[in-house]
């Protein structure tokens, strides 16, 4: 029994894993995927992952500036871990989705996961991402319980039937304008090993 408890504790460790520093100008693989990025400044990799195939980075704290990497979401999978699968199931990615469906998937997932109706996709544009045809979008939202207006950017592409995406969230006041260039530097050098 003690051994069983010890194994359980060990298995719980990744969820409690500490944040780690990501060095500038060094290529690094993200979200347990073949996607690599080369940031132009230091970031902190968050120990807690939003989902099985995703990870988050921040500079000052996840509520202030957060980049999230989605490293190959498989068909019929959600973007994030489902907190309430019974009464608030999240929408799932499908390999038949068009690029225009990705922002809609993202918006619906955010609305349900953050329990907010105040989420709008502001712009949608075509973009090259990971060497593929992709979609770039901007959005605004606010969580109901904190009233901070937030802005965000995202870029996504479907590679071999899997969804790769990088998003950036920050409060509209000060943090978005200050840190958006660091996010753009990340996506500019994002690559995928084939």
């Amino acid at each position: 029994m003690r051994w069983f408890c010890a194994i359980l504790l060990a298995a719980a460790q990744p969820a409690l894993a500490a944040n780690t520093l990501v060095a500038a100008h060094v290529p690094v693989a993200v979200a347990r995927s073949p996607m690599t990025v080369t940031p132009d400044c230091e970031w902190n990799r968050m120990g807690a992952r939003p989902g099985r195939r995703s990870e988050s980075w921040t500079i000052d704290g996840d509520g202030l500036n957060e980049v999230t990497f989605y490293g190959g979401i498989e068909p019929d999978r959600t973007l994030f871990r489902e907190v309430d699968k019974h009464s608030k199931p999240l929408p799932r990615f499908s390999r038949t989705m068009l690029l225009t469906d990705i922002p809609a998937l993202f918006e619906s997932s955010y609305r349900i996961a953050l329990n907010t109706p105040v989420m709008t996709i502001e712009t949608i544009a075509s973009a090259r991402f990971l060497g593929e045809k992709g979609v770039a979008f901007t959005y605004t939202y606010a969580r109901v319980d904190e009233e901070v207006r937030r802005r965000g950017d995202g870029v996504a592409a479907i590679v071999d039937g899997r969804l790769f995406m990088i998003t950036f969230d920050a409060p509209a006041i000060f943090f978005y304008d200050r840190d958006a260039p660091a996010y753009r530097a990340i996506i500019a050098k994002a690559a995928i090993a084939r």
Partner: protein
Amino acid sequence: MWPGQWRRAAAAVALLTGVAAHAEPIPSLPPYSGAYQPQGVDERGIWMEFDERERSFRDSTVVINDAPLKAYVMQVVCRTVGAARCQAVRPYIVRDTSLNASMAANGMMIVHTGLLLRARDEAELASILGHEFAHFELRHSLHGFRHDRTAGGIAAWASVAGAAAWAYGGRSAYDTVRVARSVQTSAIGSTYAHTRDQERQADLLSMAYLKASPYDPQRFPDIWDQLLDEKDATAHGRRQRSTRYDRAGFTDDHPSTIERTTTLRQLALAMNKPGEDGKERYDAALAPWRAAWLSDEIKRNDFAGTDFILRRMAGAQWSADLLFARGELYRARGHPRDLVAAAGFYREVIARDPTRAEAYRGLGLAQLRSRDAGGVAALRTYLTMKPAAQDAAMIATLIQ
């Protein structure tokens, strides 16, 4: 048997036998004096808390500050509870897709857009707003607070008595602990039972408002029936077991929905009062908002529940905006059969309103996702009609 059929059968039996419904008489309206001020330290404290909450809530991102919409909701409140009583109300329309409303002790009334979308007419909205106003008029926040404080004290002292008996031991220690636990359970249970009683009182007083109002009281149980049908549809769509509606659990703060529906139906039948439903006014007032609220509803990822709402709103006559919303709903789920159905809905919209550019967009995207080359033509039409659309560049890339 489909879950809704079980429920309807149970409700019919209860209605015929009068088992579930206690059928208390509708109370006469209590005397009302305007400009009520809180009395005593408890009530002043509760009002102060709600005043503070209202100050921060007023500037919230979820509140829709549209003067005509607020004025319309206020008119419905006044028609329901009377011109004198409604002066105490300050309505706030909140973007929330759930069917709900609430009223705080200080007169702040919160109305969810999910309620405004689901209510079919003014009479259904009036019945819910009357229920919330009844909580306010009967000062349920204050009575609930006092009851919870007393019950909490009893539970805490019972806990102390049980712990002391356990510590000191003796022949009767075991019995004392058992009694203490029993008292604790009863005290905790009484807080929920008290809340359920308050809901029953609010239902009855709401019926009294409806009796004195121009509205048809039959619409009150109707909206509950709709809520249950929607829940059944959601459960069916998600392949889940439907909720039991015929009993209230230990921690339920509302009576069982079957009990409420049956009681309200009996009262409305006994009242036998004709009344208006105000549907034309209702539809006209909410028309500017319907598309946005339908869009919020579709993004809830509840395919069967939303489809039920759309079918109920449409009735026998599908309007262009409801057909468009249904197309968006089916396209969002995106099963192959959904895409074919969605394309059909968009085509019907275009047949009725050829100037609706978004219908061409939906049709084109549904067709492209089905690998139907016809989608290119529909998207070209969309771009021609809306060259400055925010997604124009993206759509142009798709059809290159």
